[in-house]
């Protein structure tokens, strides 16, 4: 084509071309503006949090990282995140250890085992679990789960007590402990992990599954050779989504956990705390310094969540060439 103006060749008028250029420009500026706005808001939040945290940390008379107590409004302000960090990480870890395998199992059942007329309603049911409000989980946890945990905890105390972490100091107390919180969190993050992994499993190309079947794989072997490896990055991403929620869950933990400022490896004993729960319970009565101290702890939770996500990205990227994206 020799024409310098192909649009003319298609019969468009110059005016319309000008319009579409202007449309481009408007859209470009709009989307760039949105991007800039997002950055500004994020910077403002980070700046605000950091500034207030620094104020609090300057007045702290204890070590912020290793102190167990949280008494920022006392005459001699002392507060630290040791108990909160421990409780947050442990309860989230327990939640992950339970939720990930169960979620992968359910997702596989829905995507590869159940007949379609069962799979569809079942998938819907799991999605529905995600719509239950946190406070309802919290109420269910404290009114139903806690009273029904005693059988399990005394069994674990008897047979797994030698592990130290499952050794119960006194039996018969309500199980408002980190272990119960972990179980509750597992139930809460189950739907999101299941939903994401299910979609990933559904996207496994049929030809990879047939490749496995044609080699003489049973259904389970097909899942192991074609579906699970292909879905691995998706499983990791889904777990990170769930972990993010478990780390930050507030009201359900605050309802179930009987908090104190002891750092105990006995996971079946009541006590401990988490970042989000601590903020929720202390914020209302906190004095200005107490509020700044809580913000400092919120900043730490934010950093922990970022680190966890970063780690997941590294894991996924390391095996990128095997991800199947190239196929």
């Amino acid at each position, binding site marked *: 084509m020799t024409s310098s103006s192909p649009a003319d060749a298609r019969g468009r008028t110059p005016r319309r071309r000008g319009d579409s250029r202007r449309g481009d420009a408007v859209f470009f500026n709009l989307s760039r503006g949105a991007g800039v706005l997002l950055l500004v808001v994020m910077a403002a939040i980070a700046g605000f949090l950091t500034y207030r945290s620094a104020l609090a940390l300057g007045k702290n008379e204890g070590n912020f990282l290793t102190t167990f107590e949280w008494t920022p409004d006392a005459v001699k302000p002392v507060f630290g995140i040791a108990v909160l960090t421990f409780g947050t990480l442990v309860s989230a870890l327990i939640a992950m250890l339970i939720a990930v395998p169960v979620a992968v199992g359910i997702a596989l059942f829905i995507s590869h085992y159940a007949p*379609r007329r069962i799979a569809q309603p079942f998938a819907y049911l799991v999605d529905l679990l995600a719509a239950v409000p946190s406070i309802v989980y919290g109420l269910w946890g404290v009114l139903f789960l806690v009273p029904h945990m005693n059988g399990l905890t005394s069994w674990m105390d008897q047979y797994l007590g030698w592990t130290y972490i499952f050794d119960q100091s006194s039996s018969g107390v309500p199980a408002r402990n980190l272990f119960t919180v972990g179980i509750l969190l597992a139930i809460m993050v189950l739907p999101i992990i299941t939903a994401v992994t299910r979609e990933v499993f559904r996207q496994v*190309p049929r*030809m*990879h599954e*047939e*490749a*496995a*079947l*044609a*080699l*003489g*794989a*049973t259904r389970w*072997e097909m899942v192991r*050779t*074609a579906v699970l*490896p*292909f879905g*691995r990055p998706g499983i990791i991403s889904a777990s990170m989504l769930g972990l993010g929620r478990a780390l930050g869950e507030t009201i359900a933990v605050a309802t179930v956990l009987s908090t104190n400022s002891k750092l105990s490896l006995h996971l079946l004993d009541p006590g401990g705390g988490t970042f989000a729960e601590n903020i929720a319970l202390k914020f209302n009565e906190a004095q200005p310094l107490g509020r700044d101290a809580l913000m400092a702890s919120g900043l730490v939770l934010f950093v922990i969540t970022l680190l966890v996500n970063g780690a997941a990205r590294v894991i996924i990227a390391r095996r990128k*060439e*095997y*991800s*199947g*994206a*190239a*196929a």
Partner: protein
Amino acid sequence: MAKRIDVSGLSAYYGSTRAIEDISMTIEPRSVTAFIGPSGCGKSTFLRTLNRMHEVIPGARVEGKVMLDDENLYGANVDPVAVRRSVGMVFQRPNPFPTMSIYDNVVAGLRLAGVKKKSVLDGVVERSLQGANLWNEVKDRLNKPGAGLSGGQQQRLCIARAIAVEPEVLLMDEPCSALDPISTLAIEDLIGELKSQFTIVIVTHNMQQAARVSDRTAFFNLAGVGQPGKLIELDDTQRIFSNPSVQATEDYISGRFG
């Protein structure tokens, strides 16, 4: 090793629609048989009934008999998984496992069968890749992902993976249709070599390819859209392409079809 296939009265269904109807044929061991015919006449469907891959599609079923020497693949006590181990398959689009290295792809079938010994696997990898004419190109990067190879190399990798388990029969569904002429030639040469060990069935839309690689050719056709496909004739490739006994075959081959 290579076995005779004897099909009688075979029909295959997708749900309630019959895709192929009443097919009977005999395929000799250590020969190459080509399936030709217009699109939709059921060549792939028929091929997939020969290793019981048809039934993995929901709602799909098969009627009739497929004898592999003297065992009916559709007999009551026959395990389809075992059938697929002895009747290997190569697909139209190269489909190495994307999450596995070249090495792991080749031994995938053996691993499924429970072979673990490194020395055995090493030997099979070299032998199968040699057999698929791929060894020289990949011997220095066996631990690299299989998905990083060219399309033609990937298809030869899939052939290596299929022959690694030493099947009696090798089924190939348009194995060259996604490949360039040079890779196609490489695979045709390979088929010529493999037929000394395996019974080979190949679906192709390429008449020259059928004429070049096969000993026998089967022509399939269908009476019309929505009608089941049927076997029109099966004869020596030579005869099919020079002097077929059915007019429809001659029309199809000479391009006077439809």
